[in-house]
């Protein structure tokens, strides 16, 4: 089974040279710590920067330089700053090759819910709806089950949707799964030490298991 950093490390293997990448808040942010050697990518943060670097050293925080999670960050040489409308032109115009974000629920047709629990929690969608409606390649990073042990990979989302039929791949603490347009989740890889049975038990949506499923190479 993977921890949060393990999920981020596995997703980092998806990065390709020359890509522009938007990382959501939470586990997705950690992906930046595991860029494979020889791969050069640029991170976009939708509040208006490209070429985002690591967190600043203590004492060097700049209130005028934050990421979309409102965390203090730095810029790498060659980075750029722009306004919110241009930022979403990059997103909507599909100039970003990969979007990684968290979710509360993913359905086996690729629907995603991650912004609202009616009557309980309403934080808002932020940029998530623009991102999932536009990106070609959307990877969800999340735990396979919620705190109560219920599956987050469902036949249909029960929470208000963020986007429809948009998620392409899900990386959880248990597995890598691809969303097939008509047949549900296809199991691609197992997390180290996790059996197919465990993944089946934790997945409420339709799950396709074709033959032997390899373990992730970490």
């Amino acid at each position, binding site marked *: 089974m993977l921890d949060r950093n393990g999920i981020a490390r596995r997703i980092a293997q998806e990065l390709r040279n020359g890509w522009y990448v938007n990382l959501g808040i939470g586990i997705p942010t950690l992906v930046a710590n595991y860029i494979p050697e020889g791969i050069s990518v640029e991170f976009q943060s939708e509040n208006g920067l490209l070429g985002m670097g690591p967190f600043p*050293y203590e004492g060097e925080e700049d209130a005028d330089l934050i990421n979309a999670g409102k965390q203090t960050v730095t810029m790498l040489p060659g980075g750029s*700053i722009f306004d919110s*409308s241009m930022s979403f032109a990059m997103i909507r115009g599909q100039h970003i090759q990969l979007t990684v974000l968290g979710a509360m629920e993913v359905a086996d047709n690729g629907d995603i819910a991650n912004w609202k629990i009616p009557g309980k929690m309403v934080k808002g969608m932020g940029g998530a709806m623009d991102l999932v409606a536009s990106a070609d390649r959307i990877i969800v990073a999340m735990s396979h089950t919620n705190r109560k042990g219920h599956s987050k990979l469902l036949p249909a989302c029960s929470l*208000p949707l963020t986007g429809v039929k948009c998620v392409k791949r899900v990386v959880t603490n248990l597995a890598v799964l691809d969303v097939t347009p008509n047949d549900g989740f296809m199991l691609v890889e197992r997390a180290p030490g996790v059996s197919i049975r465990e993944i089946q038990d934790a997945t409420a949506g339709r799950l396709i298991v074709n033959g032997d499923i390899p373990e992730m190479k970490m």
Partner: protein
Amino acid sequence: MNKIVKNAQEAIRGINDGMTLMVGGFGLCGIPENCISALVKLGARNLTCISNNAGVDDFGLGLLLQNKQIKKMISSYVGENEEFERQMLSGELEVDLIPQGSLAERCRAGGAGIPAFFTPAGYGTEVADGKEVRVFNGKPHILESALTADFALVKAWKGDQNGNLIFKGTARNFNPVMAMAGKITIAEVEHLVEPGQLDPNFIHIPGIFVQRIFEGVHYEKRIEQRTVRQRI
């Protein structure tokens, strides 16, 4: 053209009960601190505020919320604010949550004379309720309308008497598009410089979009999430 006013108090003259305001900033980054403080003192009520976020409990737009001056918020993300959540769940506060990119583009459209546009963001979600859907290139889009405001309150790094503005870092965010969409745009700047000191090639917002400008004082520039790495 001299658009300089003395201070925030003078700048917000004319803001009355029931008006619609755009307020720049992303989280607490790039917010018009001086104008918000002056608005708290002025006490105008029943305001509709268009702003990406709603501040935190004791800073930014949170100050206007605590003071019950806001009737309606139009935002994309409102976490990190307990008073906001309380007022929203109790029904005291009307809230319209819209996707961040649609919010930015609706402001830009408002300033650019484009009454509406189609976007894929929000299709198939409750954001699309009651909105026209059209398919372009095989993909469904929803119709979003432009936003304008009686006053836009923005914050810039440098500005001159003509209203030309330069922003710093990610404090730019929503400020330029909101500056464009205000019927009256008030810019507060950290440094008000002499005409000619700003290189015209590097101006982010031309003064034509700004009606009043002043140099702000006592900027707190509060950091919401102070994240650092260790020196090795």
